[in-house]
């Protein structure tokens, strides 16, 4: 949908022979490991390069539960833990997510119906497919997916969220079959679970290691499966809208929900997904019309955007 030209430009960049700096927002493709850590506009402390961490695949046969996976960020978990009860309060701190939900579900429905070859006019198009909602929170995305027929597993690292999600899902017989687990994507990979579609909406800006996170998402996807990731662009406009206006002026979100330095640009997201053997097929943006109070899909990916990609067949 959006930015086909942009996507082809990105694909050009990933070829190692192109070393021109196209514009400051594009990441200069240096070495693999330092790619994500060059953040020219950020004054946040640089996280240590990936190479210095112990390699995730080691000879341990039984990883203990206490080992914290690389993509968790404790400060972020604490933020969400504090407001866990308000997930399903449509007027509370999660109101923007509730209002945006139908729009992103429309994108998910149309791209995944096309991907799996399902009838878009059917009421339950995802019947028989296994989905995982990574970072499901209170289950705002998992429940509609279950109503659309999918077998949904929702995972979140915050235990409170899983409890709330389970309680709410039990209220409707159509959603009480959702499997909620308090775990991480990495742990699921260790359990060797595979899903037809892996969705991680509004999560990747809260993880410590986006590249590793994407690798885990890819490992959870069956070959030829689908991935949907949504996040906020690291642009000036996103700083003005998603942080200044949404957090400080309109008080839609609690202050400090988002860190501008941990946003990803669409180019970066495409690149790290490419490294994780996921090719992004479509990207769309969400725009908010303040007069009607409605969100809609558009080609404008400068603030919120959502990407649909397919796992490369091995």
């Amino acid at each position: 949908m959006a930015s086909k030209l942009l996507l082809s430009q990105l694909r050009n960049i990933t070829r190692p022979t192109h070393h021109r700096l196209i514009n400051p927002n594009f990441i200069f493709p240096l070495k693999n490991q330092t790619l994500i850590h060059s953040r020219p506009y950020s004054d946040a402390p640089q996280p240590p390069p990936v190479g210095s961490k112990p390699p995730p695949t080691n000879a341990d046969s039984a990883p203990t539960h206490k080992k914290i996976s690389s993509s968790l960020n404790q400060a972020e978990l604490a933020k969400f833990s504090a407001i866990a009860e308000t997930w399903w309060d449509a007027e509370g701190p999660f109101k923007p997510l509730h209002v945006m939900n139908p729009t992103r579900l429309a994108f998910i429905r149309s791209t995944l119906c096309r991907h799996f070859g399902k009838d878009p006019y059917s009421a339950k198009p995802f019947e028989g497919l296994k989905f995982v909602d990574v970072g499901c929170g209170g289950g705002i995305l998992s429940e509609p997916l279950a109503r659309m027929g999918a077998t949904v597993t929702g995972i979140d690292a915050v235990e409170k969220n899983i409890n709330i999600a389970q309680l709410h899902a039990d209220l409707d017989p159509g959603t009480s079959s959702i499997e909620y687990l308090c775990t991480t994507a990495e742990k699921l990979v260790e359990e060797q679970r595979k899903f037809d579609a892996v969705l991680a909406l509004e999560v990747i800006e809260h993880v410590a290691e986006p590249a590793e996170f994407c690798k885990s998402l890819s490992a959870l996807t069956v070959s030829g499966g689908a991935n949907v990731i949504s996040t906020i662009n690291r642009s000036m406009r996103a700083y003005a809208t998603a942080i200044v206006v949404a957090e400080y002026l309109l008080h839609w979100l609690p202050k400090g929900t988002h860190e501008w330095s941990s946003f990803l640009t669409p180019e970066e997201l495409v690149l790290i997904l490419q490294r994780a053997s996921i090719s992004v097929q479509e990207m769309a943006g969400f725009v908010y019309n303040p007069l009607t109070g409605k969100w809609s899909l558009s080609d404008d990916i400068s603030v919120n955007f959502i990407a649909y990609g397919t796992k490369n067949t091995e």
Partner: protein
Amino acid sequence: MNRAIVRRITPSIRTWRSTLKTFCSDTSEKLHGSHGDKAVTVKSSSLDSTDNVPQYDVAIVGGGMVGMALACSLASMPLTKHLNVAIIDSNPALLARDSIKKEDAPDPRVSTVTPATISFFKGMGAWQYVQLHRHAFFDRMQVWDYTGLAYTRYSARDVGKAVLGCVVENKVLQRSLLSCMEDSDVKKKIYPSRLNSMTLHKSSLISGTDSISSKPSGSLAKLNLSNGDCLYAKLVVGADGSKSHVRNLAGISTTGWKYPQNAIICTVEHTEDSRCAWQRFLRTGPIALLPMGDNYSNIVWTMDPQQAADRRSMNETDFLKAVNDALDDGHGPHPQSERMGGGGILAWLRSDETSSASEPFEVPPRITKLASDRMVFPLSLMHANNYVSKRVVLIGDAAHTVHPLAGQGVNLGFGDANSLSKVIAEGVAVGSDIGEMTLLKRYESERKAANIAMMAILDGFQKAYSIDFGPLNVLRAAAFHGVNYISPLKKNIISYASGEQRLPIFT
């Protein structure tokens, strides 16, 4: 229309009430304990009777024309035809299988359906059933008043259409919708009783405590019926008329006032058929003559309550004479036919003149016989302040009632049903809970603006014509002239009244 039947059933319902109240509450108490632990996941299809109480997706309270139109519309769309629908109405005609015969005397309760409603019906596949019974299209309309100063003629050709509307008996519409639903394979059940009470389980998600009821039906609406049945529903639709019980139970307040007028309706026979609808504004209120086909016509005559009672009880010959006077030249002279256009001032608009502007004044056909009983209904304006509440939505007369002077009342209701079924389809498409307020509010914002605009205009007309004052009469005559000869205005009025245009201006 179901009032007579309802009045007969109510005394017997009161004796049931004492027995019903323990039925449902016992079952729910008993099962609360077994569902206490949160780890229970119940895989159940929508019509599974967990708790032995059936669960439905949509419960439509009121099986009249608008309620059935909603059910039929849901049945005709691929996204919603899997929904379980329960229709709650104590009218025995819904379950009776006897068909309407051609020889039946025409029922005085008729509705004029606009072209927008006709296309709604055609879209659902219900219009083919209407065509099997008596129905009459009309493509011309003449409006004038008792002063004899002016008249307006409308024609469907002015906007390039074939018809202005169709007059159909209410029971034909209802039966056609029911047949259309029965022919589709939608899962529905008709409950032949009345709604007694409704509870919405409130659930507060306070983590860590066990005060939450985690039954699978914890947040659904529970309806208790007068015959003791219970059912759960995700969405309760109030389509039960102007004295809506659902609206009262949901605590939705209304705004409105009674008109100091009652309407007499009856069916009459006349000498020749015409494809024209006639309306004359008299001092006490308008009289309308609507063609029904087979030389029958329906009369809707609005007047003050005392006169209505008199005219209802007077004998047939006197009544027919009064009707003929009202339509012909009693109460005031005929308007002059303006053959040369509206005079010098409006001559510059003549190039774009609609064909009906040059038609002469026609006298309505002479009424020869009374073909049905005379019924009297009080008239009022009513508008619900909210159309939606948690898991409850109002459509049709339950949400708004208007004066019958433009034949718009049930068409507004059909517009509601159309809009609500589309909103429900959009909700199902993105997997949302169809009883959720944000989804229902979309229906409300769409219909409230349109309904309020129409109601304001109709109320304006009613007030304008209830005053007999010289200068105001002349002003009204000027308005008649203006509408007749200013073609853009006439075309706008016709398309607005036909339902093709949602708001009177800006569209």
